[in-house]
């Protein structure tokens, strides 16, 4: 899976009918690291993630961002779990293999379910699960896909604070050696989880120097609190 020789990078601008969203940004992603992009709502961070994945944007956008995404494969995890409501937990996890008409790797799927703590919900329908459980199923489905780069669009923001904190830990445990790009509006979340961190102001991506400690950072880390305040001020002014 490692592609040391290639790099995943972005460069260019993004506009819609009325305004500039990103002007001449540059971004290079480090592999096997967790990169976060933080911005206020409406700053275009989710749209940027879609650009990275090569998804079709609504027609109002004029996108001149060049990305090396053709060389990579992506999996996607969003705030909305995007589970298929008629399919059981195990069917949802193996969806990618079914769509590609591959042989189902049930052993791996069950193993992942065990890791996310839902081995007793193999045949349950999504509507019978809590929000936190559904997001864990989505996490298992994301990992099951085994793609080069994992894109996460505010994956924890719909959860209550206790569940969110559990999910952050679990997700980090399972994805710490992968290449992850996450957008979020929560500075603390970004600080706990990231190896590289950028914030969006004035249509640019600005890197932030992170505390020296490695993620998953402790919440009582003094330098983390300092960074938190710094980001907060920057976002407030943006």
């Amino acid at each position, binding site marked *: 899976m490692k592609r040391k020789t290639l790099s995943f990078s972005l460069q260019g601008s993004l506009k819609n009918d009325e305004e500039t969203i990103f002007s001449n940004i540059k971004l290079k992603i480090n592999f096997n690291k967790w990169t976060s992009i933080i911005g206020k709502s409406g700053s275009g961070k989710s749209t940027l993630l*879609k650009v990275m994945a090569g998804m079709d944007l609504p027609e109002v956008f004029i996108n001149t961002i060049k990305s090396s995404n053709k060389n990579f494969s992506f999996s996607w995890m969003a705030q909305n779990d995007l589970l*298929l*409501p*008629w399919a059981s937990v195990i069917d949802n996890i193996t969806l990618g293999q079914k*769509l*590609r008409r591959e042989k189902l790797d049930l052993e791996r799927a069950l193993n992942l379910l065990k890791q996310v703590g839902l081995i007793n919900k193999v045949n349950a329908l999504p509507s019978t699960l809590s929000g936190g459980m559904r997001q864990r199923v989505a996490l298992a489905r994301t990992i099951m896909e085994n793609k080069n780069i994992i894109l996460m669009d505010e994956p924890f923001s719909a959860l209550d604070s206790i569940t969110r904190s559990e999910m952050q830990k679990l997700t980090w445990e399972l994805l710490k050696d992968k290449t992850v790009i996450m957008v979020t509006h929560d500075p603390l979340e970004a600080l706990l989880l990231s190896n590289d961190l950028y914030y969006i102001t004035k249509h640019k991506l600005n890197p932030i120097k992170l505390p020296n400690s490695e993620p998953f950072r402790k919440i009582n880390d003094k330098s983390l609190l300092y960074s938190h305040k710094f980001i907060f001020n920057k976002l407030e002014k943006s």
Partner: protein
Amino acid sequence: MNYIFKYISSFIIFLIIWWLIQYLTNSPSYILPNPYEVFLSMKDNLYLLAYHSMITFFEILVGFVLGLILGMYTGILFIISKSMRKWMLPFIILTQAIPIFAIAPVLTLWVGYGIWSKIIMTILIIYFPITIAFYDGLKRIDPMIINLAKMMGANTFSMLLKIRIPYALPQLSSGLKLAAAFAPMGAVIGEWVGSSEGLGYLMLYASGRVQIDLMFSSIIILAFFTILLYNIVSYVSNYITRWDPKSHIN
């Protein structure tokens, strides 16, 4: 069981009201026969009714199945091809814009007096609700799920089969239920316009000979069959959408 009991009790209430109206207005039986007279007529004309019923049922069933297949096929064409949607949608609306009574004689002229003109009438009447309901369901899907499936490597076919069609089932169910209620109408209108068999024909025949009790027998059998068809369709619809809480409000 409870369900059947409810149907039987509402049928009995219906009979009582019918009887009361007949009794209170003191209508002669050539205007409004009472339920007992109709029952006797059913008994006397058992074979006649059975024969004509079979023909109408056959027309309705074949029309329903063909209309369903055709409607679903059109819905799928609409979702995979923009030009199909653009060119065919006005044509489909046209099938609804022309009153069905106006088409019926033309169809009989073209296809003949046999059962096919009635089957085509049935198809025409249910094609629109099924196509529109199914197409609506197919397109009303969260675009992020489509993006996710594309990212997972889905092609047009697997996307349809595993994502879009299951998502459209609750909408299709609504179309199916409408179709089940409308289908008998198509067949009977076809029979009125020109035929020598079927319940529609029998109604006209009985009316012409002032055998109103026989006419009522035909109507009751037709109503019974419509209710039966609706319930079968409803049962199947509920089964295929059992995962969807919005389809099952008690």
